[in-house]
């Protein structure tokens, strides 16, 4: 039997979480640029501090503008709630410190954004949290790496930089069989391209700086809780299922049910670590989300045009986009991401490091910088920038060659992008000693 229809993605992208401003009638979500909020009286204040009433105390903990963004992403992802953070990295950190402490372990995909890899591989071990990195294409490798102390399984919907498509249903099954949640970074896919909760993921992390915003003018992150994971049944998460001394022995699973994780993240992690989002950033991200579908559709369309062009170029030895023949995840991508595999991909240039550097330097429509997901097209040469600390062997293990180029395809007219790429290919050819 069919129930009533819920509002669609495009409608939620414009309306979820927002109401016309009750004070002024403003249709756009106002920027509540205020550190704190007045209490009508002392009892009201006490009731806010004691989680008896809904409302705002201090913008590190919650803010009306941020709240709209948080509800909007939770609605778009089909979760129970969300928290806006200072950056995508802050969202990842917030999830981890909410779920575990020293002595814990994470199983993560080896194909991660460099910043996430740094946090897991180098920084968190100093605080007693170790990570085992595994082949993202091998669900059994995730299973084999799980230990008694494991508390989280983590991967990216599209791995960096080879666009390994994370088999969310299979890896979620592995995680759940071990009583663990699966968290995915869906930054490059957004809810337009994939709905991880519907596939079995339990937590989603976004860098909202990228496609959710689309304009490249803010840094922000979002942590979304599906509310589907049974923390109590798992028995591995005392931060959620046992009394918390830091809040009068509150037991989050008992008081908040499906929203236990996201509430603990706010009441503890956001409160104590303080990596909150600025209200103005939330406002900017909301403006981006309003046009998410139209932008993502165009991003994907342009990407398909550009990958087709590159495939025809002699100097290009590989184009790594999951929709293309030869990509190992082509069938999985078609099943999990029917609307497209995003707008970030890499390709290999003949001529190695020199060709790669010359190519990036020669582009003028593409901006040479370390970001993805802007409305403007972007280029970077990973071996000399984002992955410069890695030697050739480590680069190869991550699927990166000396001549690998990463592109983030924007919304420009594709003929202008192709003309720019031709310019880059000519420069790369010269650098490699060719005559083209």
């Amino acid at each position, binding site marked *: *039997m*069919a*129930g*009533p229809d*819920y*509002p669609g993605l495009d409608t*939620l992208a414009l*309306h*979820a*979480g*927002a*109401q016309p401003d009750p004070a002024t009638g403003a249709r756009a979500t106002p920027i509540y640029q205020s550190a704190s909020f007045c209490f009508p009286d002392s009892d009201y204040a*006490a*009731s806010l501090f*004691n*989680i*008896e*009433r*809904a*409302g*705002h105390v201090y913008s590190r*903990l*919650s*803010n009306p503008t*941020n*709240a709209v963004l*948080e*509800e*909007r992403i*939770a*609605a778009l992802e*089909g*979760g*129970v*709630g*969300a*928290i*806006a953070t200072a950056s995508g990295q802050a969202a990842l950190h917030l999830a981890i410190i909410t779920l575990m402490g020293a002595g814990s372990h994470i199983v993560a995909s080896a194909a991660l954004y460099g910043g996430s890899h740094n946090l897991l591989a180098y920084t968190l071990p100093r605080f007693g949290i170790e990570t085992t990195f595994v082949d993202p294409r091998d669900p059994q490798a995730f299973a084999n790496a799980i230990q008694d102390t494991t508390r989280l399984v983590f991967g990216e919907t599209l791995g960096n930089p080879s666009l390994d498509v994370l088999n969310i249903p299979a890896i979620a099954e592995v995680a759940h069989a071990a009583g663990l949640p699966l968290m995915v970074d869906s930054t490059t896919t957004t809810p337009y391209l994939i709905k991880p909760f519907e596939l079995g993921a339990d937590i989603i992390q976004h860098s909202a700086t990228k496609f959710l915003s689309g304009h490249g003018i803010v840094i922000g992150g979002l942590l979304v809780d599906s*509310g*589907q994971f049974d923390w109590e049944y798992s028995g591995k998460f005392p931060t959620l299922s046992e*009394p918390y001394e830091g809040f*009068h*022995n*509150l*037991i989050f699973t*008992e*008081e*908040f*049910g*499906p*929203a236990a994780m*996201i509430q603990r993240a*706010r009441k503890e992690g956001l409160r104590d670590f303080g990596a909150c989002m600025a209200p103005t950033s939330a406002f900017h991200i909301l403006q981006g989300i309003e046009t998410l579908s139209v932008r993502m559709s165009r991003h994907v369309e342009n990407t398909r045009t550009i990958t087709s062009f590159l495939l025809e170029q002699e100097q290009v030895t590989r184009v790594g986009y999951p929709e293309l023949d030869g990509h190992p995840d082509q069938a999985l991508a078609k099943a999990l991401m029917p609307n497209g595999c995003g707008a970030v991909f890499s390709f290999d240039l003949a001529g190695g490091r020199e060709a790669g550097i010359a190519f990036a330097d020669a582009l003028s429509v593409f901006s040479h910088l370390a970001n993805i997901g802007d409305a403007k097209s972007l280029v970077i040469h990973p071996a000399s920038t984002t992955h410069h600390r890695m030697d050739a062997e480590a680069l190869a293990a991550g699927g990166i060659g000396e001549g690998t180029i990463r592109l983030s395809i924007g919304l420009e007219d594709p003929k202008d992008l192709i003309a720019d790429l031709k310019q880059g290919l000519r420069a790369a050819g010269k650098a490699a000693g060719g005559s083209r």
Partner: protein
Amino acid sequence: MRIEVNGETAYCYTNCRDIEADKPTVMFIHGSGMDHTVWTLASRHFARHGNNVVSLDLPGHGRSTGSPLATVEEMAGWVIAVLDALNITDAALVGHSLGSLIALECAASHSDRVRAIALVGTTSPMPVSDAILKAAEANDHAAFDMLTQWGFSKRHQFGGNRNSGIWMIGNTLRLYERSAPGVLFHDMRACNEYISGTEQAAKVSCPALLILGAEDRLTPVRSTRALQEAIPSPVVEVLPGAGHTIMVEAPNAMLDALHKVL
């Protein structure tokens, strides 16, 4: 806290406190397919204000074991059994939807144990549509969808939660999804078949408060006339903008209203 009632484990949220004999008690009763977590804000509030709070998981719901009870009368008997098990002489009962019918029945049939009632998102009779009953009986997710969507006012279909960061549609849906198969059907059928509510309402002798959502589509304000007329001198609060899920849609206004009888 967990206690034994009728041979099964009954879970009662008490704000991590023991029941104290010299304090008044406020008992919260959830609606169909829900559990005690819908009352978290309100129960924390009344606990801080000098009350014992007992927020129930009805049998077969949340953390309480056993099968769901078939009728509102049986549920009312179980609520009184919980009071007995906790050595509580009398309590103010706050109930939502199905819970409001249970509170009403308790006040009518066990007047010595009930010092006040607050009926939230209520009406009587409380007929349930065939579509919902059939879907619930089939354990079809459509029953959750119908109750979730029609349970919120039109304006709240897009959220606007004053409780930061919580997508109230999603959280409500997850609560329904956590209910064991058959539980929602038992609850809905109990609502549908409780036809003596108006008659019982006339027997209420304690202070009574009705908190209604102005935009409630499941128990519309206009449907409450018979109940309002049957209960002697009820206090009626109609909350603007709220639908049926009043604890979530208008938590602060509901708290303020509850203070009128509690």
